[in-house]
């Protein structure tokens, strides 16, 4: 017999159980998108929080599982509302772009993960499950896990509760009205702020419920958070409708189970992300041809404009600054000890990758959360070429850039998605590539990684550890920096920024927006590929663990904290992101928590990043010297006063 009915039954019930949990988490995403257009990247961490809270309740209190399920859900719901009120509302009130909110939720996610690590530890915990949940129920001669049936029953009950809330209660109807048209609803007395708080409360409750349900199936640990982004596929399958999501979740669960059972279990964790990418591409692109570019509200004048320098003075200032930096860079190995040189080199490698990311986020206006994948592609390309095929370093590095760019070209259509969908799709891309690094053993050598990567050499000169490698890295960084700086000032750069500012107008002026964005993605990937090549030769050893979502988020943080739309900012951001934790080393594990808090705080108080801080300080200094700024409004009045019929002078 080819197919064992017993096994199939177990798979179906198991898939449905996991799928129902996905549906609960995904309902949170759907509600959030409906009401606020935000993708809450902390949703997965709320699932994790629910699971941990449930764990403590089960261990400390005598409450039965059912009561714990309810109490933990409510507590997680309160946690969600707190997060919204304390951190996200102030950002929303400043009318910040969507990107800021998304990044703040990423920061909140980091904080939640680390707080949970401080409270419950990093080791996986086994859920204490009550006796009634173990064993099998036999229906029509087919065994079904009682635990799975419990999960399905409770999840369906929760969804029915939600349905009742939306259909029969006044707040539920008010919520629907606001989700449909928040402006009109506000006029009719439905406060949008309260709807947002309610949305966070309910979606967090659902996440908490999902956490308590799914925890007995797995160990409880920080990596439960990945259930969040994975569940997003359920919402996508359900077309971001409430009822659709309730069906999309179980479909996703079944898809995963059967694909794992009959195709390949190695890529099981990637299936959901694959589904997300495919569904978003098929559904979201045809519906939203304009894409969703970000709104940037923090325009920076260049320093030359700020101080009203003429071109010659500006050039002189640029030369002076470059010369000072050059001397500093040259003397640095003499001033620092071995470890510090090592650290600075590593930061410069990351900065090279961050420069590329700045192009695509800061200038093209798309959010990329999977940048580490390109770092990995570059590292593996370079490692394989040099170690197995004996290719010299320089061609290997160039090949690394080209291969990474080719991957970006392949996935380029992702950039046509609206901002928040682009973020989740690229996160999925990063996770899928991570799985490829782990599982494509013939090429990547799996988890054991590739070792014995030799230090780079050009001709007979070997860039050994310490100063030589440092100088190689800084040379590469300078080349990439200058190239990107030139690029953004070129015709292509103007077109790219124009497309970010106003897609419709840019197309009318002849900018092939979709292609320009794809190209920026390829260039960004190329930079990461170069960085990856350096990375491989720097450590002499690479493994899949170096190229995960954590590194991707680190890249994103560098660009954001450094300041969007500033290449120098990306480099400063890299020093900040990797350097500050080093300085805080005495604080041990708290440092990453501080780091998540910083991310949120930056979004709350300094959304323009460090580059903006420098600029604000300079303008304050400038204002002290005193030159009153002519406002836009008064300048037209001046013109009207001075209006005299001058002949139109089209000089030929």
């Amino acid at each position, binding site marked *: 017999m080819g197919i064992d009915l017993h096994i199939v039954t177990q798979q179906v019930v198991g898939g449905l159980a996991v799928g129902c949990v996905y549906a609960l988490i995904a309902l949170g995403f759907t509600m959030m998108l409906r009401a606020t257009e935000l993708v809450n990247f902390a949703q997965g961490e709320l699932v994790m929080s629910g699971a941990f809270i449930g764990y403590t309740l089960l261990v400390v209190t005598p409450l039965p599982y059912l009561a714990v399920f309810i109490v933990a859900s409510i507590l997680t719901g309160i946690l969600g509302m707190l997060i919204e009120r304390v951190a996200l509302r102030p950002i929303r009130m400043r009318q910040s772009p969507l990107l800021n909110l998304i990044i703040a939720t990423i920061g909140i996610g980091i904080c939640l993960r680390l707080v949970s690590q401080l409270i419950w530890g990093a080791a996986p915990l086994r859920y204490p499950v009550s006796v009634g949940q173990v064993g099998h129920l036999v229906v029509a001669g087919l065994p079904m896990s009682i635990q799975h049936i419990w999960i399905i029953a409770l999840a369906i009950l929760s969804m029915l509760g939600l349905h009742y809330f939306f259909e029969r209660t006044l707040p539920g109807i008010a919520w629907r009205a606001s989700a449909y048209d928040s402006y009109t609803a506000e006029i009719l007395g439905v406060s949008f702020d309260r709807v947002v708080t309610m949305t966070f409360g309910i979606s967090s409750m659902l996440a908490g419920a999902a956490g308590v349900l799914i925890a007995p199936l797995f160990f409880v640990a920080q990596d439960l958070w990945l259930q969040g982004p994975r569940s997003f596929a359920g919402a996508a399958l359900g077309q971001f409708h409430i009822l659709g999501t309730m069906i999309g979740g179980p479909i996703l669960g079944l898809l995963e189970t059967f694909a794992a059972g009959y195709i390949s279990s190695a890529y099981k964790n990637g299936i959901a992300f694959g589904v997300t990418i495919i569904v978003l591409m098929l559904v979201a692109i045809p519906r939203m041809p304009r894409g969703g570019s970000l709104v940037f509200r923090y*325009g920076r004048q260049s320093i030359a404009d700020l101080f009203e320098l003429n071109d010659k003075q500006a050039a002189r200032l640029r030369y002076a600054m470059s010369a000072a930096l050059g001397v500093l860079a040259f003397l640095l190995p003499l001033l620092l000890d071995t470890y510090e040189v090592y650290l600075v080199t590593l930061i410069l490698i990351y900065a090279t990758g961050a420069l590329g990311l700045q192009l695509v986020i800061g200038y093209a206006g798309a959010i990329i959360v999977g940048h580490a994948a390109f770092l990995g592609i570059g590292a593996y390309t370079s490692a394989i070429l040099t170690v197995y095929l004996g290719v010299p370093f320089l061609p290997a590095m160039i090949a690394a850039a080209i291969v990474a760019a080719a991957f970006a070209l392949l996935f380029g259509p992702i950039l046509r998605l609206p901002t928040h969908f682009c973020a989740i799709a690229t996160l999925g891309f990063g996770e899928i590539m991570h799985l490829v690094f782990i599982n494509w053993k013939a090429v990547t050598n799996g988890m054991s990684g590739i070792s014995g990567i030799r230090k780079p050499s050009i001709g007979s000169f070997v860039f050994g550890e310490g100063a030589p490698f440092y100088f190689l890295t800084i040379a590469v960084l300078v080349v990439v920096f200058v190239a990107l700086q030139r*690029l953004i000032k070129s015709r292509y750069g*103007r077109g790219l*920024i124009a497309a970010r500012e106003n897609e419709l*107008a*840019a197309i009318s002026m002849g900018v092939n927006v979709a292609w320009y964005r794809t190209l920026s993605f390829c260039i960004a990937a190329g930079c990461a590929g170069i960085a990856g090549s350096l990375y491989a030769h720097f450590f002499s050893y690479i493994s899949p663990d170096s190229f995960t979502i954590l590194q991707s988020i680190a890249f994103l943080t560098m660009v954001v904290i450094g300041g969007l739309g500033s290449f120098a900012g990306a480099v400063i951001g890299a020093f900040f992101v990797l350097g500050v934790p080093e300085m805080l080393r005495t604080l041990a594990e708290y440092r990453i928590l501080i780091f998540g808090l910083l991310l949120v705080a930056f979004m709350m108080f300094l959304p323009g990043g460090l580059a903006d801080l420098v600029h604000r300080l300079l303008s304050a200094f400038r204002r002290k010297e005193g030159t009153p700024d002519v406002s836009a409004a008064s300048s*037209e009045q001046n013109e009207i006063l001075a209006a005299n019929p001058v002949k139109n002078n089209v000089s030929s």
Partner: protein
Amino acid sequence: MSVLKIDDLTVNYGALTALSNVSLEIGNGEIHGLIGPNGSGKTTLCNAITGFLRQKSGEVVFNGQKISSTRAYNMASLGISRTFQDLQVFSEMTGLENVMVGYHGKSRSGVIGGIFRPPRVVREDSEIRDRAYEALESVRLAHLANRPANRMSFGQQRMLELARALVSDPLLILLDEPAAGLSPVMYERLTEILGNLRSHGKTSILLIEHVIRLVMSISDRITVLDHGEKIAEGTPEVVRKDPNVIEAYLGKAMKYVDA
């Protein structure tokens, strides 16, 4: 010879017919007014010509070339440019940069050129810069060349859009309600610029406008749309007296014009 020839154009939004069997011809150097009540399909026609909407049937021929299936981003290089009903400037870019983007369709250099800057690219760039500056001067915004567009007044932004559309020396320019919301001074400036364009005779204009005074005084010919159909066409005098037009739309406006 005509610069733009539209034959039996029909455009649908789902089940709704936004334009049905509209034909239109614009001669070289002609200023062609396009009027009609709200929702009569003027902007739809504009979007269909510029490739943002696909027609259900009919044909658009520009400068002897079918453009019914040409991509929107290729229109600029063919020589069609436009302004928008609701302001569409590049807010964070300076006045000069805004206008430089207007020359995008007529210039060529790409990523490689941008990085390595061979003499060809340097020349092209300085040419774009000079032309953009001239265009800014022609709408008298040269003094705002370095100011970000979002720090300009409404009228200045409208003029900026105009400069951006003019910088590429287009054969045809679609102006979608350029006079809406302009102060008297800016309005004067607009008529002066349109007058200059007309006397140069190189650029044809399709002028969508609600300010009847402007359309009637400057257009060579006028097309009137109502509910997606063409109900009249001809010189301002002919259109002014057309009973269909008076019935559909100009009844009230005529009194205003005569007054």
